[in-house]
């Protein structure tokens, strides 16, 4: 039996990823704040072939509950093989520039809640000799840009956290995977006009599975974002400041 826990499973990318794994012999723990939608996803995975599904309704921004949450999960399934952290919000950058509370709220969900969960989960996973801790960060975390540095800073913080965690767990055989998607067409980005750089949640899901299989550390999805971010990261500041990026 493969035990899979997905935090923020109501996310379009996370749901698609779970779907690809839903087959005989997989058991899911689904965590999200929308209890009704969790039941819908549970039914979906069961029909598609998952062996068993447990749901844990929980607002992941409330960090004080994280230890209990993970304890409950462990009680249900005993061991975790694959953990995916996917929840997140895309804050309104302009609003964050006006209001420090708005800014820290976004940081709370996108960074602190991830780090808090990872702290608890790492201690569980460290007892194993295998398994995967996968976290969706973003290409936005690679360099601060005026159009969304609040979101980017939170994602970047998680990436650095994962770097350190990977270092810490390197002797255990646990994979720590940093997933950095580019533009993905999901409810989070519903209001954006889409162009050729945009990927579907299913594309990203396939990439995530492949990266888990290949036991990668960091993956850009789709892969061409590695090239794009390579360029953006190395743009001299005076050039960067002339762009609207």
């Amino acid at each position: 039996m493969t035990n899979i826990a997905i935090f923020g499973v109501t996310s379009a990318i996370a749901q698609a990823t779970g779907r690809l794994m839903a087959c005989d012999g997989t058991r899911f723990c689904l965590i999200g704040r929308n209890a009704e939608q969790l039941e819908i996803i549970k039914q979906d995975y069961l029909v598609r072939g998952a062996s068993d599904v447990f749901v844990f309704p929980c607002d992941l921004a409330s960090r004080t509950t994280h230890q209990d949450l993970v304890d409950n999960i462990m009680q249900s399934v005993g061991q975790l093989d694959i953990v995916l952290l996917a929840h997140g919000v895309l804050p309104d950058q302009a609003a964050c520039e006006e209001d420090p509370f708005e800014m820290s709220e976004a940081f709370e969900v996108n960074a602190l809640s991830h780090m808090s969960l990872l702290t608890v989960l790492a201690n569980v996973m460290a007892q194993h000799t295998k398994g995967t801790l996968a976290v969706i960060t973003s290409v936005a975390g690679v360099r601060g840009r005026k159009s969304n540095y609040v979101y980017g800073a939170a994602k970047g913080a998680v990436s650095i956290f994962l770097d350190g965690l990977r270092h810490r767990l390197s002797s255990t055989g646990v994979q720590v995977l940093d997933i950095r998607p580019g533009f993905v067409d999901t409810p989070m980005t519903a209001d954006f006009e889409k162009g050729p750089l945009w990927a579907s949640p299913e594309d990203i899901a396939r990439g995530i599975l492949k990266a888990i299989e290949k036991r990668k550390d960091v993956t850009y999805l789709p892969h061409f974002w590695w090239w794009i971010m390579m360029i953006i990261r190395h743009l001299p500041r005076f050039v960067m400041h002339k762009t609207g990026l």
Partner: protein
Amino acid sequence: MRRQTYKSWGNLPFGKQKVIPLLSRSDPLPTLSEGETILPYGNGRSYGDSCLNTDGALIDTRYLDHMIQFDRERGVVTCESGVFLKDLLTLLIPDGWCLPVLPGTQFVTVGGAIANDVHGKNHSQFGSFGCHVLQFELLRSDGRRLLCSPTQNEVYYHATIGGLGLTGVIVWAQIQARPISSTDLECETIKFSGVEDFFRLEEDSQNTHEYRVAWIDCLSKGTALGRGHYSRANHADGRRVSRDSLLWKKRISFPLTPPISAVNKFTLQAFNSVYFHRQRKTIRKDTLSFETFFFPLDHIRQWNRMYGPRGFYQYQCVLPMDQACTGVTTLLRMIASGGIGSFLVVLKAFGDCAAPGMLSFSRPGVTLALDIPNHGQRTLDALSRLDEIVLNANGALYPAKDARMPPDMFRASFPRLDEFIPLIDPVFSSSFWRRIQPTSQSGDER
């Protein structure tokens, strides 16, 4: 909320629309401002403007993609309306079930398949998609959720099947699958030399072959007029069902829209001629995999881009059997002489199964479909000439493919229109619907 360019398959230039995704099957419809209209959007595989609502809003159903229940014993599957036929097939096939009706692409949603009451290559045996819909939930703008079946809210059931998305949002649907012996198909392809031969082959094959379709070389004239390939097939015997047959090993994609259409006089001549002669023998027998047989076009993602930025029209008509032979011949003659060439001219027969929808397109007769590059007014004029032939033969055009039929033509060929109109949801409308309103009353009927 920004306006977005959602397109239909023909890539014809239509305006932008507000897009509102429905995130959950328990969500209500959005609150609209005064005078604003909405239309459900599946996967935009309709060719014209029936899935678009320019200057209005689209309710994107893509997140209604959850399975709800699958009774493996009885072959009854319940799912949300945004589920692709591809995903249903992936679920059904390993247990020996299949969808009874399959259109030429599997990237169609269940909601879209119901709202156009789509047909496949086996109409004479299985009718249209709607014939296999046991029940569905219809969400209306007044908040009501109507459970519709042949025995409950029947009028809405018959209005919504083939109802072009105008009666409300189909939230989920329950479908009766049919068993199959194999995902492989035993297929025979027969070269024929004219329209009359097609009808003869149809008569010979209708009791022996479930799937039947013909491709016609639409550029041949004179004595070669109406020559083509007739293909007929059955599921192979011997319980071989393979899930792998559903996944193209590698799909290729038409990456970008070329600045001008790649479809022109020369490529068309070459294609039609090579395609006709590719088969030497008069009869060829093959065992084909599921996808090769049903969805050859899905092999190239976004093939519609080859028509360039101006897009293309599809013209699909149905002619009643008694008029079919002369009608099709006249149409082909007009197509060959008018120079409106096409890669794909497809001819299929519809059987006598009564379609369940008030506005269903399929009806006893023969249906002809062709793709035509958009050359502006010249193309529109040529298509109007085809309309006359279709109207004279008491035929009809398929709204799922249409972007230009005149209002009179629609009214003349959908006799249950007046029964349908009162069942339209008051805030639902589409570009298609506004276009086919009689000009004198446009505005008061949405």
